[in-house]
């Protein structure tokens, strides 16, 4: 997704002189096309994310549309108060771009996991939050949102190859996308883990369970009507997200279910505990955190049997 982001942003900068790109010393082998083409509108501010967001605030006040780029945690958590008191408070078009949502930086450990970014930003009014599911949707989403008023947070992945079957890059702000129809259970997902969710739906199909798969790429403004429409048709829905269970997609679904008085259980396939320090590939981390394809299948099957899904977290590690 970051490759798609860099290429698309470079195209946008060709068309619009307001586009500016700041990085906190990250994006090596990704941002060069922009940096080389527009040296006047590219700055590596150094390892200083608070300052980066502050600078972007000043640039945006003067008419620029600055994108600030870093790894998810450094882009959102370190400068969180700057984001709040800068672009959010002033309603300025600063774009926070975080790469590596979830546990994509697997071997790098907890400091690099983006597990609460959506949660902490979703509580702030006035910031658009976009988490594309693949690189094709990254491009579409960026093209259709970059010039919106007010700040935006883009939660990107590193993967520029995998595509979510059935999505075909579709993106519509404030809408959810159905990538697979089904009537037995509803799987709802956000971000790069959408590919695992779709794969889990295929597994379920083999077991005779026909799952509907919904992709949520706009967390704010939430696709509330689309969610209510689909949640209203099922008695159980599984929220799949590489994010803590609190604050992210699953929480959003619970808000919609409660707010719309729907009769649908929400089972959360999310990170429920703090990772214990053992690192590994994203696939390994998914398996230990209860986010593997098999864990999604199990959560869906259990919910259909009327069984409360058991968190798989740490079970594989023999903890607790």
């Amino acid at each position, binding site marked *: 997704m970051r490759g798609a982001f860099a290429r698309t942003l470079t195209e946008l900068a060709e068309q619009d002189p307001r586009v500016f790109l700041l990085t906190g010393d990250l994006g090596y082998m990704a941002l060069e096309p922009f940096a080389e083409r527009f040296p*006047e*509108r590219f*700055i590596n*501010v*150094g390892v*200083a994310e*608070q*300052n980066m*967001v*502050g*600078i*972007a*605030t*000043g*640039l*945006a*006040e*003067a*008419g*620029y549309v*600055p994108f600030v780029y870093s790894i998810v945690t450094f882009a959102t958590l370190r400068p969180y*108060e*700057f984001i709040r*008191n*800068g672009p959010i*408070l*002033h309603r300025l078009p600063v774009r926070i771009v975080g790469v590596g949502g979830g546990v994509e930086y697997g071997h790098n450990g907890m400091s690099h996991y983006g597990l609460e970014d959506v949660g902490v930003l979703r509580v702030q009014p006035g910031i658009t939050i976009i988490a594309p599911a693949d690189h094709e949707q990254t491009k579409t989403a960026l093209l259709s949102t970059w010039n919106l008023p007010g700040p935006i947070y883009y939660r990107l992945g590193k993967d520029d190859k995998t595509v979510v079957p059935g999505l075909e890059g579709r993106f519509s702000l404030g809408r959810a996308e159905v990538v697979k129809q089904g009537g037995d259970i509803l799987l709802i997902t956000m971000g790069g883990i959408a590919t695992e969710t779709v794969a889990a739906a295929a597994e379920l199909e083999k077991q005779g369970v026909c799952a509907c798969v919904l992709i949520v790429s706009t967390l704010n403004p939430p696709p509330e009507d689309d969610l209510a429409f689909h949640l209203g048709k099922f008695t159980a829905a599984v929220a799949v997200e590489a994010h803590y269970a609190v604050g992210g997609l699953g929480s959003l679904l619970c808000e919609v279910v409660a707010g719309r008085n729907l009769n649908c259980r929400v089972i959360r396939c999310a990170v429920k505990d703090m990772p214990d320090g053992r690192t590994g590939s994203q696939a390994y981390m998914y398996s230990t955190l209860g986010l593997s394809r098999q864990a999604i299948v199990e959560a869906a099957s259990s919910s259909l049997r009327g069984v409360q899904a058991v968190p798989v977290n740490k079970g594989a590690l023999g903890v607790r």
Partner: protein
Amino acid sequence: MNTSSILEAGAAVSAQGALTGASIRRIIIEQSRRAGVGHIGSALSVADIVSALFGQVIKVPSPGHRERDRFILSKGHAALALYAAFHLRGWISQDEIDTFCADGSHLGVHPEHALPGVDFSTGSLGQGLSFGAGAALAARRQRSSRRVFVLLSDAELNEGSVWEAVMFAAHHKLANLIAIIDWNGQQAFGYTRDVIDQSRITERFTSFGWDAHNVDGHNVSKMVGLMRGFNTTDGAPHVLIAHTTFGKGVSFMERQIKWHYSPLSDQDYAQASQEVGKAP
């Protein structure tokens, strides 16, 4: 008289009176008493700096004008001094300044950009210089002669983010960025020397690549002279270490930690208003 002569020839004079440190102080005492709020000592500390800036240095044809110089009160808790300057510039009326800290007013303890004239909301220390660095960078890239003034407190330099901005501004030679440090030696809970030692501050800024100057923060003509003399086209960013007296102008407040937060009692007010003179 055209705009630039109003702004640059000398202290600006509006229907509300001359924009001087003394007139700002009178308003600070009047309004803080009326509203019953504190931060009086901090506002008095910067009264002369604000009068120098808004009376004679900053070019703002009107609030919101695209090519205005930008001003950021990074030490947002001194906002009352800023409102006083706005009032004396004729940007806010007597009725409006009388809403200071009233329910529903835009004139709170810290400045909100919803109030015309406030370029950036502040109140959380350590953010203003980054906003200013961005604003200065924007002016540079837009080939504008706009300048950006950021007024910080000395204790605010405790915030690490300030130094991120200091390094950035020096590296990018943001000559159009002018920081003024209200060097009054006090913070909420003590004297700055006892909390975090910031001695040799001039050398610190110089070693970071800034053009640093020490000045009496109550000597308006000296501050104005220095700021007017700055090369804001090329070279290093500028910093004025403005040596001030916390609570300046009210004898019982001067250098007293208590007056960071305390509001005025009737007796305090009687004495303070006598010392600063009656508000215009």
